[in-house]
């Protein structure tokens, strides 16, 4: 008897009797013998709660984690501080055991929270409308591309080579099947090569996609691009770091048409890559082409304000193959986490977090350069990530840092073969000066030892 199945064998027998049946197997008479299983499923024996915890703890302890190790690894997933309240509010069962708010009268909690979330995303990005979430930053970017093709009736997408490599991969996958063409630009001193865009822009360009800060942590010049892109009637799509928007000019003010990005930094743990949060915002004129669920304000029959899913005629359950996207379930709980996070931090707090990241990243950068065994890969303003080069293979450096309980940065050569020896370091508000100093000291010592070995 499972604790999740209330009906006892006795009760099941009496229910069967009411159906005129003797055995539960009679319910499955309609399934042809030829497709019935003739054996039990070959799965591990069921575990009681205690045994399950032992098993799961073993699996969990076979991973190093960011509580035990100090992390300087970013590249699209960040170790930001999550205020304790976020977890408590997310654990409210009426939030997480509910489904999509199809019946708005008993879902005002979810719906109002999403309305607040949409507002906050608009405020951060400077855009007019936002949806209730996409799966992650990469799929949000890919769907921004298809939406651009749909909105402009054009087939080519130009994407900067300084956009996250995994995002470009997802974009390539979606586009290959959707039927659009992708052109990837090079980069110049770490930022998008404008001349590549200039030469490629045509009347068949649906959108130009850049990331700001880009994958290398550097700031891109959105305004310069905007004139170029709009001059050819194409859309400007920008993928952003939401924490950076506490300080940086929102892309909406620079003329972006669609703004997407990864919201994991807003209250979701790194969790080995998911569940994350793709946010998606656009200008009002593009509303009807937007994918995903959208919440709108309305009133009830007594004139009270309430919230409902709206503009559903865009979606799959109504438009089917003509829908703006196939998306059904999204990342609602992660969006709720972001709403709570942004409420807890608020106007001033988010700015404080962003400033701490900025100051600490710049401090770490200067300390690394000052050792003499690192040099910058690029010159240019950056936010919370930067790339430095050393003489040692990056994976070896990271391996040795592990024994000092440090998780080192990302090996850029993995995606950019021309960037051998380049290390992408992320520094968030969680990194204390002591941790940074220790990191710099350990890293430089390892490199010096390596250098001596080579002689």
């Amino acid at each position, binding site marked *: 008897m499972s604790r999740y199945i209330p009906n006892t064998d006795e009760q099941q027998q009496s229910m069967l009797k009411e159906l005129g049946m003797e055995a539960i197997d009679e319910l499955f008479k309609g399934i042809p013998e030829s497709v019935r299983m003739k054996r039990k499923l070959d799965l591990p024996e069921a575990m009681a709660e205690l045994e399950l915890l032992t098993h799961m703890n073993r699996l969990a302890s076979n991973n190093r984690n960011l509580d035990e190790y100090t992390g300087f690894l970013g590249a699209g997933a960040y170790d930001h501080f999550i205020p304790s309240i976020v977890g408590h509010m997310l654990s409210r069962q009426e939030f997480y055991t509910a489904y999509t708010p*199809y019946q708005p009268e*008993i879902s005002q909690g979810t719906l109002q929270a999403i309305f607040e979330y949409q507002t906050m995303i608009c405020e951060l990005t400077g855009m007019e409308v936002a949806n209730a979430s996409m799966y992650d930053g990469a799929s949000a970017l890919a769907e921004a591309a298809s939406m651009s093709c749909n909105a402009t009736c054009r087939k080519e997408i130009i994407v900067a080579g300084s956009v996250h490599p995994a995002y470009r991969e997802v974009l390539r996958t979606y586009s290959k099947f959707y039927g659009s063409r992708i052109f990837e630009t090079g980069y110049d001193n770490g930022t998008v090569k404008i001349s590549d865009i200039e030469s490629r822009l045509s009347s068949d360009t649906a959108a130009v996609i850049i990331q700001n800060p880009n994958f290398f942590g550097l700031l891109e010049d959105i305004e310069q691009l905007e004139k170029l892109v709009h001059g050819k009637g194409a859309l400007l799509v920008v993928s952003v770091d939401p924490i950076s928007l506490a*300080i940086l*000019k929102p892309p909406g003010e620079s003329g972006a048409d669609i703004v997407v990005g990864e919201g994991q930094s807003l209250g979701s743990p790194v969790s080995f890559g998911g569940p994350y949060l793709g946010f998606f915002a656009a200008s009002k004129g593009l509303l009807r082409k937007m994918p995903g669920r959208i919440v709108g304000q309305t009133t009830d029959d007594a004139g009270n304000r309430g919230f409902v899913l709206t503009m559903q005629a865009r979606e799959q359950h109504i438009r089917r193959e*003509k829908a703006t996207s196939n998306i*059904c379930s999204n990342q609602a709980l992660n969006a709720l986490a972001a709403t709570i996070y942004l409420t807890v931090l608020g106007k001033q707090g988010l700015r404080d977090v962003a400033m701490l990241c*900025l100051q600490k990243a710049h401090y770490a950068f200067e300390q690394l350069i000052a050792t003499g065994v690192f040099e910058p890969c690029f010159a240019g303003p950056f936010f919370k990530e930067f790339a430095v080069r050393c003489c040692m293979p990056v994976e070896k450096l990271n391996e040795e840092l592990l024994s000092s309980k440090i*998780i080192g940065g990302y090996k850029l050569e993995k995606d950019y073969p021309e960037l051998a020896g380049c290390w992408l370091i992320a520094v968030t508000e969680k990194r204390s000066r002591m941790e940074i100093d220790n990191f710099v000291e350990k890293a430089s010592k390892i490199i010096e030892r390596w250098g001596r070995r080579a002689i």
Partner: protein
Amino acid sequence: MKEKKLVFEISRPGRKAYSLPDCDVPEKKLEEMIPKQHIRKTNPELPELSEVDVVRHFTGLSRRNHGVDSGFYPLGSCTMKYNPKINEDIARLGGFARVHPYQPQDTVQGCLELLYRMDGMLSEITGMDKVSLQPAAGAHGEMTGLMIIKAYHEYLGEKRRTKIIVPDSAHGTNPASAAMAGFEVVEIKSNEKGGVDLESLKAAVNEETAGLMLTNPNTLGLFEDNIEEIAWIVHQAGGLLYYDGANANAIMGISRPGDMGFDIVHLNLHKTFSTPHGGGGPGSGPVGVKKHLVPFLPSPVVEFKNGVYSLNYDLPLSIGRVHSFYGNFGVIVKAYAYIMSMGAEGLSKISTTAVLNANYLMNRLKEYYVLPYDNTCMHEFVLSGQRQKEQGVSALDIAKRLLDFGVHPPTIYFPLIVKEAMMIEPTETESRETLDEFADTMIQIAKEAEECPQIIKSAPHITVVGRLDEAKAARNPVLRWMKEE
């Protein structure tokens, strides 16, 4: 009925709910690090609340919501079963939640082992040869599966196969996913039993057919007993058979799509495998394939060799990535723990109980509502509100009246092939008493429809807001709060 203030409306300048340490590194001027033209001129209008305000606001919001933990939630096709709490604790363990996806592989052997074992267990449950856990939701899994189908045909040089066949009873994500994968959608009509009409299918398949998407049991909760013939027809024509696993809760341990002839399946971990729905997500939509389609799975794939788990990116025929990392890992952890708690017998018991509960409920209601397909159902069944419609009460009205009884209504107006459809899926985690109570309520409403329909048409009455004007919301979209100038 009380309106609830928005978080922006209770904000007061200067209040704070956060606590951050001071900057302990030498501080530089902002303009030294970021050029002026990149700097924001005005702060975003985020709220400013004290911690107690934050807690009261979100606690208050949660109390305006109904989840499975609040009461019965028979939303057909969504499998709103109880979400085990132990799995929530497990997913929060630091060794899962605070692991970075790009850590060196030898520091994440536990995560990789979990993914690898999950692949194995889901393959066994579905009768497939390999499973990718990358898609982040059912629809995402459908899209991925359809891309695999397209890639497969193209690899064989079959470029003409541009069409996917979808029954008219299919969930909207099916044709929408097909369109995203670049296919044209061909719809075929269901027969009078609500199943695939074999003659229509035979007429629809040709050398342009890439595949057929099917749910089994179908969206009426009925098992397609012609499934082997359906598989034969599609395979003969050179197409592949895709299984939409949304209804897998009916058949675990009883029948497997792989044994029915399906080439490719997706599962919904947030349905069948008990992970919470989260108010609309996150879900997880793993895709399983037969051997001939394995090379096309999304990259990377988890492998196990010489005692070591690793990520293999060397997959020349892979369709590529559909997610920035490896999928919704935190959701997969919960589903994994669920399967480990249930075992083979547990999963079979789940399905047999789910089917019994649905049949029991159907039997209690069939005298009071039109039952378009009077057959033994699987884990869900569809009623039609057409008798009540003739009395002036629609399925929508009935749904709103149910809210007065603290119950989440069934799915309404789906599938499209039933007038005034109400799709009811009780799941196995409900007691007989709950089912009886629901049946009694539905019977009462049927009586009200005859005797005093007005009480139904003016429902709901006891919810925090009355019936909301959805037409107005679409006509004049107000999609965000704006600060008054």
